[in-house]
């Protein structure tokens, strides 16, 4: 007697389990039981589990009965016309299995492998891959680690991320100008809306070195191609501000600040604001230009009123373009948020052309940044006058074993020359031999190499260069988003050391190990200079060794313990050390400074 559980609940016992399971399955295939039902006979524990619960992942498979595949050529031909997918499911040709029923199934990968023992046939071997991975052409020729990288990279590529992007306020998004559908593509890209939302462009690529500027994954890009619009994109950045309400009935006000406002910038920075305090669309803005003028009430009510000459000074709290950014105002919305506050949102757009340091990748996990932008006249050319858009280093290939990358170039070349798309579906692609044959017929060398000439000297290269077309992706990491410089700027209140982070205009940290390098070189004065961002003049009482002060009002140096009749010397120290001395003092440790003549 074998117990039966339905959704983990004991319902009874049966005598012949195999027969029972067979019956349930056949009823399901007839359509008398729901397709979500899965049955699993656990021989080890001697129990039958019927699952109907939520949250199980099911996958479709073609049913095989007595070594015969139920999906015949005849039905395939009818598909899409008289028959639909749902009909196949209803007829029991296709059924959905969950993880537990899969344990009882014996699934053939290819139709030719089907034997009497098999219960199911995989719809396509491609189903072992996810969407992103199956988009990679010829991926069965690549190494698995590169496929993982390749599918990650595709998620970072710029393209048409959404068709209503003009109405959206997304942070950190870009739209690629003139995105293209890949020449070498897989079955998945035809069924998936990949075609309507392409994420890259087909470029001409040559595998060669170029003056060493493409070593270590860097790529060389043709300046002429950039000028013709290759990989141009538009970057969007939303800005928004809210009219907050404060205690006491006070409120922010979106308006052009007048000169009485505390923190008033300069007339020049407010020049784009219209009467309502908001910038107009299509204004060309630069860094620090004010986008939305805003005036806030004083921060601490009543505190300043007694002392301040101009009581109740309002503060300036406008939104301005971030440091290092510029663009055109694209879209302005005035609305209200959940709290009922007036909300002003706007979007800035900026055209980005590929530049030194922007990141690009093929679909095979081969990513790299631009190492040099070469003027078109200096780019190597083939006998036909073809100039590559991108020059890719051949050293990136052998160690990573991305054979798929090479085959795509070959396929891309055939596709571009013959004007058709090449099927690169994993496990089921146009064979390489066929590509070679076709290339030969098109009047090219079958291995894809061509005689090329040095663009700078016109000399012929001693070796033939592998050149072809491939689908390239522009990734969302662009130098313009990363670039930051600082000479001097904001410091932390406590330590007087520079603040951290790009958004705050922070400094770049010279860390412990970098310090060791300077020490190792004996560059002691350079080291001192690098660390003096928090230097301070400190007055030390030479009689008690504690910190004294300079009284600017009386123009006199004094020590709060010993008075002003003692020697008080100003010394230059890091403020951090003064802070340490103060903190030790608060711990009850008195540290004295004994001064000596240095030289």
């Amino acid at each position, binding site marked *: 007697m074998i117990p039966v559980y339905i959704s983990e609940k004991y319902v009874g016992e049966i005598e012949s389990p195999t027969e029972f399971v067979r019956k349930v399955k056949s009823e399901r295939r007839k359509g008398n039981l729901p397709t979500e039902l899965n049955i699993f006979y656990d021989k080890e524990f001697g129990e039958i589990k019927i699952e109907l619960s939520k949250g199980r992942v099911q996958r479709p498979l073609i049913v095989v009965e007595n070594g015969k595949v139920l999906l015949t050529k005849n039905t395939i031909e009818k598909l899409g016309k008289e028959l639909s997918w749902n009909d196949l499911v209803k007829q029991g040709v296709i059924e959905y299995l969950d993880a537990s029923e899969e344990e009882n199934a014996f699934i053939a990968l290819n139709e030719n492998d089907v034997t009497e023992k098999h219960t199911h046939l995989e719809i396509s071997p491609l189903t072992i891959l996810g969407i992103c991975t199956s988009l990679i052409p010829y991926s069965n020729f690549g190494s698995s680690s590169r496929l993982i990288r390749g599918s990650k990279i595709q998620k970072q590529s710029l393209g048409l991320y959404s068709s209503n992007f003009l109405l959206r306020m997304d942070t950190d998004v870009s739209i690629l100008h003139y995105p293209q559908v890949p020449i070498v593509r897989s079955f998945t890209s035809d069924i998936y809306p990949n075609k309507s939302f392409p994420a890259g462009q087909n470029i001409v690529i040559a595998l060669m070195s170029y003056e060493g500027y493409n070593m270590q994954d860097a790529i060389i890009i043709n300046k002429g191609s950039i000028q013709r619009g290759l990989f141009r994109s538009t970057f969007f950045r939303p800005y928004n501000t809210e009219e907050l309400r404060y205690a006491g009935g006070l409120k922010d006000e979106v308006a052009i600040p007048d000169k009485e406002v505390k923190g008033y910038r300069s007339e020049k920075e407010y020049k784009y604001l219209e009467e309502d305090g908001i910038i107009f669309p299509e204004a060309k803005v630069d860094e620090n230009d004010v986008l939305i003028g805003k005036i806030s009430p004083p921060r601490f009510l009543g505190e300043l009123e007694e002392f301040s000459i101009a009581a109740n000074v309002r503060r300036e709290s406008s939104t301005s373009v971030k440091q290092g950014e510029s663009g055109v105002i694209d879209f302005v919305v005035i609305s209200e948020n959940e709290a009922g506050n007036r909300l002003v949102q706007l979007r800035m757009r900026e055209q980005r052309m590929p530049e030194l340091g922007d990141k690009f990748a093929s679909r095979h996990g081969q990513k790299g940044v631009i190492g040099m932008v070469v003027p078109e006249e200096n780019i190597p050319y083939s006998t036909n006058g073809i100039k590559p858009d991108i020059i890719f280093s051949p050293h990136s290939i052998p160690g990573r074993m991305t054979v798929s990358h090479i085959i795509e170039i070959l396929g891309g070349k055939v596709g571009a020359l013959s004007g058709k798309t090449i099927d690169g579906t994993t496990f089921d692609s146009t064979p390489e031999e066929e590509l070679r044959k076709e290339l030969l017929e098109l009047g090219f060398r079958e291995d894809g190499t061509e005689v090329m000439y040095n663009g700078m000297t016109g000399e012929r290269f001693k070796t033939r260069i592998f050149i072809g077309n491939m689908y390239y992706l522009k990734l969302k990491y662009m130098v313009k988003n990363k670039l930051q410089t600082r000479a001097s700027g904001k410091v932390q209140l406590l330590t007087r050391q520079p603040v951290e982070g790009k958004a705050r205009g922070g400094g770049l940290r010279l860390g412990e190990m970098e*310090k*060791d*390098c300077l*020490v*190792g*070189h*004996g*560059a*002691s*004065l350079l*080291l*001192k200079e690098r*660390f*003096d961002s*928090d*230097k301070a003049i400190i007055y030390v009482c030479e009689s008690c060794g504690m910190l004294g002060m300079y009284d600017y009002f009386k123009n006199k140096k004094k020590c709060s313990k010993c008075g002003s009749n003692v020697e008080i010397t100003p010394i*230059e*120290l*890091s403020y*951090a*050390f003064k802070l*340490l001395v103060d903190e*030790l003092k608060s*711990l009850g*440790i*008195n*540290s004295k400074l*004994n001064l000596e003549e*240095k*030289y």
Partner: protein
Amino acid sequence: MSATIYKDYENTLPKPILDNVKTLCSKYKLSDAKIKKTLEKTKEAYLKAQVEPGESIGIVTAESFGEPSTQMILRVFHFAGASEMNITVGLPRLIEIFDARKEPSTPMMEVYLEKKYATSPSKVKEIAEKIKGNTLEDVASEFLLNIMENKVEIKLSRNKMQELNLNSKDISDIIVNSLKTVSVEQDRDNIILKPESKTNKLSDLYKLKEKSKDIHVSGVKKITQVFPMKINDDEYVIYCSGSNLKEVFEIEGVDSTRTKSNNIFETAAILGIEAARQTIIEETLKVLEEQGLNIDIRHIMLLADTMTRSGGIRGTTRTGITKEKESVLARASFETPIRHLVNASLIGEKDPLSSVVENVMLNQAIPLGTGLPGLMAKMKEKKK
């Protein structure tokens, strides 16, 4: 004639270099003038090789170790279980040496033998057997717990005893000597241990069983395995896992001038601190060589000198050489700052600000490199 030329250089050049020049010059029969020129060039090269004043050798040493060891981390466990003798290598061993751990995780010894013993395989084997330490576990075939009668029964193995030239009586005597408060009965090859205490605790009985397993019966203590190996043409060396220099030296035929251990503390206790310094250098070199790293020996020597200069061995830890630092601030900047600051304030320590870290903290020029020399101005005397 030429002897006088050499004499002039005795103070500037070290003896081995001078001797080398001497032999080479006489080999090529150089004239006096040429000898002089050679010596002058040698002197120049020698002075050039010296470290300049203000060179930050400590930092350079640290960087020389730090950079390649970051690469070593990735390769540490590659050798796990590869050979019969499992030796700690790579970064773990390097950390063990530099932290001056009392006991290495895999103690090892290389036992060299005197000339007349080293060449004959049979004699080498004999000594090796003498060296190998055996415990009761090695000669017993079975340990049984008799819970009913509260006793441990040990069955000895005839064959194993014969191999070690022992009999049951000897072993029972050894047990009597090493276990107290236990009564030992011997009946042919069976030994019965009975705790004399009246408490019939099972855990005590179990402890007795485990304790009796480790009773040392013959050979040198702590040495678990011996591997005689041929090193060159016909000389044999015995590699041992486990280290016990003192007892090994007492065995006849062992060459105590060449035998060495990888236990730094043991070497220091038996052979002295200079030997320990040499052990640190050799063990470090061994690890680096194995990893295919090339660090100049002078860096390792500096480290070994620093670790042993006090006469004892101090690791590069907060309780070792860092504790020796003169500056309070420098010590506080490296691990457990509060303890260092509080302890310094208790005794009113003074920080002379004479080293690197404390000057970086105060944003002063560090006394190294360009910050080392001070400026002295020669003032014109006023005419009276």
